């Protein structure tokens, strides 16, 4: 880890905000955390923030970022994060000491006033520039007009400009309303004590997710390909995805038609259809635990961890 990386790393464990108790969604609001997760932990998430002025927006989303339940679970299990109750955190933050809030408001107002002043000044400078130019152009051929030139020319512009220009910039300038893009100066980070239980994930899909993640793959939601995860061999900005992954229970009955459909879909988009899941009874598969097919060392596996087997389906071309 370079010095820069460690500087940008968030304070661990960082909060993942869970909004709503019924349809649980896991959000991140801090861009540093988001970029750090992507760079060092292969966690992609999905940006869901759109601009208020374009409600039809469906590309180029921004913060907040929504995590898949599997991603949130993995981060919590690794001890990097904890789940914070967004509702409670927000309520507490709003009830934060009045002085801090007042300070914040004062700062915001000061900034807004400064912006307004700067804009007014800019306007005045522009007006004067234009006036001077007009003076120079009209003044040279007709010397008589130079005296009363100022009056008619200025009247072209609306009187309000004249009024403000006659006076120095003063407190009469109406402060701009400022919309802060961040809210974290006054809102304290929630404490780890208030952490919520782990997200609910299906055991089969989580096992597959964890397995692929441990092998260094990046996973994004696979809804657009009718699978659970699109699996990328590196950052999706640099690589196309290799697999369309589907988690299954060890004894789950998989329709042959689904395998064929998945294989055909995958081959059509130059990907493989990958099925996988956690091995149930280990007595048959001890051999595989010892020599994992991908050469990944099994050292450091906790006893609760599971071995995962995967199969890839491709169209044969005949």
């Amino acid at each position, binding site marked *: 880890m370079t010095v820069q990386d460690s500087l940008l790393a968030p304070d661990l464990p960082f909060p993942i905000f869970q909004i709503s108790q019924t349809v649980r969604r896991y959000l991140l609001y801090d861009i540093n955390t988001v970029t750090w997760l992507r760079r060092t932990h292969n966690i992609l998430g999905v940006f869901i923030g759109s601009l208020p002025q374009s409600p039809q927006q469906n590309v180029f989303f921004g913060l907040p970022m929504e995590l898949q339940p599997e991603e949130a679970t993995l981060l919590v299990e690794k001890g990097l994060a904890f789940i914070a109750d967004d509702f409670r955190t927000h309520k507490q933050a709003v009830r934060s000491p009045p002085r801090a809030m007042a300070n914040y408001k004062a700062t915001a107002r000061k900034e807004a006033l400064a912006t307004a002043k700067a804009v007014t000044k800019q306007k005045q400078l522009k007006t004067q520039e234009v006036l001077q130019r007009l003076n120079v152009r009209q003044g040279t051929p007709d010397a008589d007009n130079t005296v009363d030139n100022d009056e008619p020319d200025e009247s072209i512009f609306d009187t309000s400009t004249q009024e403000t220009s006659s006076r120095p910039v003063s407190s009469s300038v109406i402060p701009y309303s400022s919309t802060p893009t961040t809210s974290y100066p006054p809102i304290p980070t929630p404490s780890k004590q208030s952490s919520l239980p782990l997200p609910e994930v299906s055991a089969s899909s989580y096992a597959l997710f964890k397995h692929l993640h441990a092998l260094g793959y990046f996973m994004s939601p696979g809804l657009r390909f009718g699978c659970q995860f699109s699996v990328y061999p590196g950052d999706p900005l640099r690589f196309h995805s290799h697999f369309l992954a589907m988690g299954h229970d060890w004894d*789950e*009955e998989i329709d042959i*038609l689904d395998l064929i459909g998945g294989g055909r879909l995958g081959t059509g988009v130059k990907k493989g259809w990958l099925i996988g899941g956690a091995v*149930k009874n280990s007595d048959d598969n001890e051999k595989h635990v010892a020599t994992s*097919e991908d050469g990944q060392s099994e050292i450091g596996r906790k006893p609760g961890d599971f071995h995962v087997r995967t199969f890839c389906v*491709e*169209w044969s071309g005949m």
Partner: protein
Amino acid sequence: MGDLQPSALTAYIEASRPVGVLPQDSHHHALAAQVLHNLQYQHDWTDLRIHTDSSHSARPLLKPLVSGLPPHRIYVHPDEQIEMLKQSVQEKDVPSEREWVLPTHLRETWSLRKFAELFDGIDPVPPAENQASEEKPPFPTAKGGIGSRRGGKRLMLATVGDDSTVVYYVVHDGIVKPRQN
């Protein structure tokens, strides 16, 4: 109305009905015979045979498997594809490889456990009927070179539809990156 003759395929399946007690159901053997027939007469595979027992453990196979030699290479690993392009080797110049074929019907269901058991019971390369056919003119088959087998165990998933259509898909054991067709 003359006598209705069974179709050539039905006659073939009837004729290849195995004798004696076998570890798998007879309808699976009929399915295997149908796939074998399809491979032989539609896809020009040679040296076809049906396997009922695992090649390295005493346990019988979950389902009867077919193995055979396709007329040309069925599966080319993407890394090998790149090397072949670099060295401008034609695909027809690379010797074909013996393949495992798993006969299934479209209405079957399979599970991860079944696939795992099946893969555990087979060798990467199916044993040939006669050893002579295995002794192909050796291409420079250095490990990882062109012509060497890559990508771990694999089998062809042959699925028979109700109209006797057979489709073939490659199933790999483990994570094998896809081909760039």
